[in-house]
């Protein structure tokens, strides 16, 4: 098989322009964790089934495990590390603490990034709608009731 060259790529990760060279098969998730040292984004299933890898790509929530980094050349990526502003937690981060919306915490950064996307989309108002539109984020500890309350708090504040 032919030698496959690494490809140059520029991403704006949490507001910082980042230039890298990656093999074509590098997922955005692996780039964030292994190349950009941003390990807040978690690898759960690596198949788009759990939502732990959720990040915001140009403001939209996606599964970072199911996209190739090279396909996103030029995009803005926001991870959980990029949500706080000047040391102040994002309202959703504070709401998750206020409502104890996690137990082990492994799904939490994905839950919070997903909830940021959910609020930006603006299609959820009721608890039923929040549950439905957060269904791509699995919490095996079962913190769902508190997660819904946390999101409702952040929505009420916004």
């Amino acid at each position, binding site marked *: 098989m032919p030698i496959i060259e690494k490809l140059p790529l520029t991403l704006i990760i949490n507001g910082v322009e980042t230039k890298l060279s990656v*093999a*074509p098969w590098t997922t955005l998730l692996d780039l964030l964790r292994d190349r950009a040292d941003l390990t807040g984004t978690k690898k759960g299933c690596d198949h788009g089934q759990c939502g732990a890898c959720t990040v915001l790509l140009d403001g939209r929530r996606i599964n970072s495990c199911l*996209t190739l980094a*090279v*396909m996103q050349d030029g995009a803005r990526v926001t991870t959980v590390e990029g949500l706080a502003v000047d040391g102040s937690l994002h309202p959703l981060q504070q709401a998750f603490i206020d409502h104890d919306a996690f137990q082990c915490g492994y799904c939490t950064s994905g839950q919070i990034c997903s909830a940021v*996307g959910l609020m930006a*989309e603006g299609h959820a108002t009721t608890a039923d709608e929040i549950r439905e539109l957060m269904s791509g*984020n699995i919490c095996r500890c079962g913190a769902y009731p508190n997660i819904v309350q946390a999101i409702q708090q952040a929505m009420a504040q916004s």
Partner: protein
Amino acid sequence: MTPFQYVRAIDVAEAVRLIAADPSAKFIAGGTNLLDLMKEDVERPSRLIDISRLPLKTVEETPEKGLRIGALVPNADLAYHSLVAQRYPMLASAILAGASAQLRNMASTGGNLLQRTRCAYFYDTATPCNKRAAGTGCSAIGGLNRMHAILGTSEMCIAAHPSDMCVALTALDATVQVTGPGGERTIAMSDFHRLPGDTPQLETTLERNEIITAIALPPQGFAANYSYLKVRDRLSYAFALVSVAAGLNLEGGRITQARLALGSVAHKPWRDAAAEAALQGQVAGPAAFTRAADILLRGAKGFGHNDFKIDLAHRAVVRALTQAANGTPQSQSNKKIA
């Protein structure tokens, strides 16, 4: 993933040239199913041709008051598009019944048509599968086949097509616009997917060197009387056991036109003109709906674990038609089935 080369196509013509030049290349758009299959070594393309930047991302009204949906419109954008929500709520509902918000943000309209079955044996490269490795046998027949097809199966394959969107597109008489080396052509949605027969590895009538550019919807959207009812093992984010897309036109309680398609029961969205014809002119009610379900499911055959799907599908058809007739479509957030 098996290593591969990556190239980005700048226009449709170049995409067609690139795919024709390499018999083991594949297009990638949203990537949500292809990358998953590549991680499992089910798909091993030598080269990925990135078509995600092609200018196929608009939803436009056609001169005859239908819609033309670019193949790269993300599923979420399509579901929430105002014209789709108003005129084709059955399609919006079906899209929102599928996958998760994150996946719908990435997955493309054209890619949804080309997604592969979620048969566990197709995914498991350690087991025989005629779809993945022709001639090795079907592990699902006699295996764990709870999710599998009950209609149009063959001795070679009992896989089910997993899409929700495609069920509504089939019911709505959508057409698929494709471009290949010989130019453009249009494929009716009901002709786009194939039954397994002796060649379960062939899932669509799209030629290898063709690219989907758009989906077209005719004007008739059944916006007043429709339902998309999806029955699954958990309330959200699961593939259907059975789904039903139903659309009715009513005049004084009688059905003047009916559309009915089933999902997750066959290798393609399942539609039967005789079931729809049996509804025409009838009073919208349980007698006509039961008869339509009888016709739609004639010839249904279970394989053990999925025997329940025959009864389930029958009841779901009657329920979805009832919801459509009453103007009370199934909600995709409050999952209580009214």
